[in-house]
């Protein structure tokens, strides 16, 4: 892994005091690397924005350290940190023109006006709004304001750019465009981006690494592929994409293979014994698209069930399947891609078998 730019070391943040206190961050540690698009993903209230504001210097950690390139930043006010922020509401100065907004940070660094204006024009080119320098922010659309906020934050060439849900106010189409745009800007400028969002799709599309947060803790850090394909926690598997969860006990068969036994007595083969060894009450997760259906006309081993619901999505079809006799609450969702000429159709109420590839099963930590 390349050089670490920003680190949080055992950072906790408590808001309020007495019985009303809220632990927004609970002993969080993370290293963010040079030239990385790092995303903090989680539902509202998980502490992701608090961590961002701690890095920006807008809040002080209750305990723990924030480091920039090895230097402890804790007491440094925001205006002394080489870190800039794109705010959720953009926070463009309404009394300044677009160009004056962009040169604001440069003038604060003491850059002569002429040079600052040149840099502002460069930035306007970068965000593809070159003709808009003399407008007032109020004369721009939401998407344009967003780009100006980016240009303003990038102009002083910060070591780290913090982005606080910057796309949440845009409509879907614009949001998709800006996702590509943000990734392009990050690659072109080579600046480390720390991005906060509650939108898992956004996180998967742009990030080099994602930290999934819940209730003030980081549950899992990894590449989008790691996070999606190998979730370690039920929360991660559930929050990012869809997942099937099955509970049971893990046993070792006489042959030495590991098997998960569900409540109804059905068995699912595991690739390997989990590190924790044989135990009761284990949860596994399987992505719906990794499962396959076959018409059940024999009494082979494996999972069988009844199709309860069929939902057609265009690109694929989702089957909701009741496992075993009605009354047991074990259910599976199976997503099958719709391909031309593949007339494999199932009716509601049909008995089907479900194929579970051994490598699609993830044993969760909790």
């Amino acid at each position, binding site marked *: 892994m390349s050089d670490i730019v920003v680190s949080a070391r055992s950072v906790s943040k408590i808001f309020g005091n007495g019985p009303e206190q809220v632990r927004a961050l609970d002993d969080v540690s993370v290293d963010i690397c040079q030239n990385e698009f790092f995303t903090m993903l989680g539902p509202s209230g998980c502490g992701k924005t608090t961590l961002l504001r701690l890095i920006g210097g807008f809040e002080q950690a209750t305990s723990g350290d924030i480091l920039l390139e090895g230097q402890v930043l804790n007491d440094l006010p925001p205006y002394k940190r080489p870190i*800039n922020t794109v705010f959720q509401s953009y926070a463009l100065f309404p009394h300044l023109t677009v160009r004056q907004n962009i040169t604001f940070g440069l003038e604060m660094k003491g850059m002569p006006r002429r040079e600052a204006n040149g840099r502002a024009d460069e930035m306007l080119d970068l965000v593809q709004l070159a003709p808009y320098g003399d407008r007032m922010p109020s004369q721009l659309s939401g998407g344009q304001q967003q780009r100006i906020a980016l240009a303003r*934050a990038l102009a*002083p060439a910060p070591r780290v750019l913090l982005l606080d849900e910057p796309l949440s106010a845009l409509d879907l189409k614009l949001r998709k465009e800006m996702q590509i745009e943000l990734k392009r800007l990050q690659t072109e400028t080579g600046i480390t981006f720390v991005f906060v969002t509650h939108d898992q799709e956004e996180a998967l599309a742009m990030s080099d690494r994602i930290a999934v947060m819940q209730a003030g803790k980081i549950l899992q850090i990894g590449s989008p592929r790691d996070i999606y394909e190998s979730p370690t926690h039920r929360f991660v598997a559930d929050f990012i994409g869809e997942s099937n969860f099955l509970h049971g006990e893990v046993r070792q068969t006489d042959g030495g293979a590991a098997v998960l036994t569900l409540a109804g007595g059905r068995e699912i083969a595991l690739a390997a014994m989990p590190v924790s060894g044989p135990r009761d009450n284990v949860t596994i997760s399987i992505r719906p698209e990794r499962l396959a259906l076959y018409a059940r006309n024999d009494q082979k081993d494996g999972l069988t069930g009844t199709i309860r619901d069929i939902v057609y999505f265009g690109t694929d079809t989702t089957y909701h399947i009741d496992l075993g006799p009605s009354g047991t609450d074990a259910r599976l969702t199976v997503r099958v891609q719709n391909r031309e000429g593949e007339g494999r159709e199932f009716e509601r109420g049909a008995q089907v078998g479900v194929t579970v590839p051994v490598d699609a099963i993830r044993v969760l930590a909790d």
Partner: protein
Amino acid sequence: MGNLIRSKRFWLIAPAVLYIGFFMAVPLGQMAYVSILERGDYGAVNWGVFSFDAYASFLFERDLMDNLMFNTDYLQIFARSFGLSAMTMVFALVLGFPTAFYISMQPQARRNFLIFLVTIPFWTNILVRNYAWMLLLRNGGLIDNGLAWLGYESGGLDILYTPYAVSIGLTYTYLPFMVLPIYASLEKLDHRLIEAAFDLGADKWRAMTRVILPLAAPGIAAGCILVFIPCLGAYVTPELLGGGKFMMIANLIGSQFGAARNWPFGAALGFVLLAFVLLSMMIYAMKFKSLPEEKL
């Protein structure tokens, strides 16, 4: 026109229009008329005899030979009033802006309470408040004694019946008119803009001068006007805290209608004052019409 009279809106605003029309336009017209009449020998005016003497006597006086001589007495009173009003405005701004800023930074519940505190002086009669200031400022008064107790010489305050006493009294009276509009513009101010300024490297001073002050400018200008203009017309405070020795425009106008029995001149002075006020309003309007208040 028929549509207008039948419309509900017309009847809703009609009482206000009638009230303002009658109680503002009529007396104003009456005074304008008085100001161009000839002064009566024993007070009042000679109705129907027109003369511009009243306006002329603002700048000129007739000597014994009936020549017009340039006379700066009244101009001096105007200048003094403008100077004192400006001083009061500056005092009120210096005290009022930090107050408004502080209040706007408080949690919502406390803000309302503090604003309520700011408006409390309005509840007391202005005469009572001015007498209270006389007791505070006079030699041997509370402030004088307080200074003596702290080791400064007693009896040496000598501030009552000076322009400073008048300005202190006026500042006290009109401070809420400065605080409230500035607070209104600061309260609207998005705190994330201040964070954005910090984020971009502005320290507290530059965040104040480059972001907060420009955005609060309409409120500051409104506050300055709301303090400056009533100060020009202040009557009670100069009379009491200035001890009558120190005349401001309103006292001069009052004396023309009273002791001096020169109604046309009193009315003319009123219109000269009105002209000055309108002029300063126009300057304000020209300077601030392009400010981004409505764009926020």
